[in-house]
């Protein structure tokens, strides 16, 4: 948790639970949560586009000049028929793990604020 938030909180304590600053502590936590969420989503969707639409379609003809090492698969063909699907599954798995961890962190932050009587 960043220093500014802690100072905000300490100020908040002096002013009592209903001041704007208390709300802003919760608000800041919510904004942080949402920004993190958006960052994860953008990063994962970029990979999604690069693999599914990029390797599977846009660059498939060029990739087809190469073979998937150790197999007879032309690379572009492999991405379209196998690789993209495997990556899609992994992307959702990554999203679940990242988001569930973020949820827990966010939950703890709010619990903390609750204990301090700010919500």
């Amino acid at each position, binding site marked *: 948790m960043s220093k500014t938030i802690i100072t905000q909180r300490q100020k908040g304590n002096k002013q009592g639970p209903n001041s704007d600053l208390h709300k802003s502590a919760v608000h800041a936590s919510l904004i942080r949560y949402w920004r993190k969420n958006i960052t994860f989503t953008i990063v994962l969707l970029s990979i999604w586009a690069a693999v599914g639409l990029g390797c599977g379609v846009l660059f498939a*003809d060029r990739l087809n000049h190469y073979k998937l090492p150790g197999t007879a*698969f032309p690379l572009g063909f492999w991405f379209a028929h196998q690789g993209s*699907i495997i990556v899609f*599954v992994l992307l959702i798995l990554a999203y679940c793990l990242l988001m569930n961890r973020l949820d827990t962190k966010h939950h703890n932050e709010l619990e903390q604020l609750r204990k301090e009587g700010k919500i």
Partner: protein
Amino acid sequence: MNIQSWTLIFVGISFSVYLSIAWFSRVRDTKGFYVAGRGVPAIANGMATAADWMSAASYISMAGLISMMGYTGGVYLMGWTGGYVLLALLIAPYLRKFGHFTVPDFIGDRYNSNVARLVAVVCAIFVSFTYVAGQMRGVGVVFSRFLEVDVNVGVIIGMVIVFIYATLGGMKGITWTQVAQYWVLITAFLIPAIAISIKLTGHPIPQIGLGSTLEPEIAGTHGIALLEKLNQIQVDLGFDRYTDTFVGSWNKVNVFCVVLALMAGTAGLPHVIVRFYTVKSVKAARWSAFWALLFISMLYLTAPATAAFARYYMIQSLNGKTVEQLPDWFQNWEKTGLILWMDDGDGMVRYCAGVDNEIFRNGKLTTNDLIVINRSHQKWIDTGGTEGNDGRIVMRQKGLSGPDRDIIVLATPEMAELADWIIALVAAGGLAAALSTASGLLLVISASISHDLYYRVINPKATEKQRLLLGRTVIGFAVVVAGLLGIYPPGFVSQVVAFAFGLAAASFFPTIVLGIFNKRVGTVPAVCGMLVGIVFTAYYIITCVFFEMDPWTFGIFEIGINPQGIGTVGMLLNFVITLILTLFFRAPGKKVQNMVDLVREPEGVGPAIEIETAPEH
């Protein structure tokens, strides 16, 4: 024991399992009926979603399509799985947090408008009926081939089964039946694929077998890769190389558009989205999206292997064979008309891409049409071409060259001469795939009419009991309509599947995503964007498919956009129009803003809304 007795046993056992599940999971309230009481564990919901998603088309037709299309068949593989990434990251957790019953619920409440709700209801019903008709045909095909009953009798049996478990258990019954159906269909898909993979390449994992070398006793030479051999055969017969990208009208732009339209369409299909309402929490919604795609990928990663194996067997077991040498599977399937042979008089089968191709399918021809063509063709052969008509030219002009793609999955086990019980298992799998998807779609239709239309718009004072009764009545009615569509299939069913995805991509997907990620978007821009997306997409598909309009090139592409890919353009139009209009209209009121905040936030403001405490319920 023969194939038919094995089929009877498998179908009998699986149907009694479905019915017992229905009895044990019958429900008494609307929450149970529409969203299974929100008590479904993530992994079970993942399986149910997978079964719901994998329709008769995925199970029976997709591998066949890939088999005929090679690389280009990947549009279906990537499109129908990539959509789940969009669904998991952009839609599922948020809609779960929103916590009502249906997709029109979200659109109506977020945009605070009954017009938006009605547009969504109409789309949901249209998309679902389009889809259901295809499922019923699948049930008919399986029954008529494997149990040799009349297609209509097969459809009626299927309808009765769905009717019982859907009306009794609603979403709860459907969910748990789908879990069972997932196992039936995936086992039935994997076992033959593994068996064939071992036979052809000696490798038990089909995905690896696909990229390995052929067994020497099958290929005749040492160390030639399956895909390489397939490319060679294809070229010899005048087809495009199997692994080649961008052949014919499938140029890069078209492949790209179709993949994107299928992805966005998948993420916007109501029967898939509602499955995420049935789990306990936002966290479970995310996990069930993961499980769903994992279970789906079991089939989708195997289908390309089955496709290539089938292509190899199909060509090798037919070409150059005489009547006496023709394999049994050919004779079995010739009866269904899905594969036909019209000889040029030399007594040997030739399946190729050129004018001397002799393998056809019946398509939409009636038995009488075929008899006329065959008689005339026989006369043509007998008289050495002076009388009668060359049936091959007639069939080619009708666009019926090559076997029907549906036989690929259903006949491959027979082509590879697998055991009878494996062949019978495939039949049970096909039925499971068709029935599970049909029941999910029927529930969406029922919910759209009895919940969105009746309860939310016409009579908000309806009691719990009235709503449940209406839900059951509508689902019963929808089953009958779907059955009629299966018995009297409208000629355009296969063509309008593009519709389902195009409309979902152009309407639901942008509107839901903007509703969650952009608080500024208000009623008027959203409704305008949705209507423009729908009207544009519908206009393009209808004129292209039914009035033979040339696909548009938009002045920049070499080849016009395939109607299957037009949803991509419709989706972009929807996004652009909604965002531009948003600049000129006021942001939505405080109530809607708060709702968006609530949807974005899994914790803190409170756990996912429970139906009982939600204000409107």
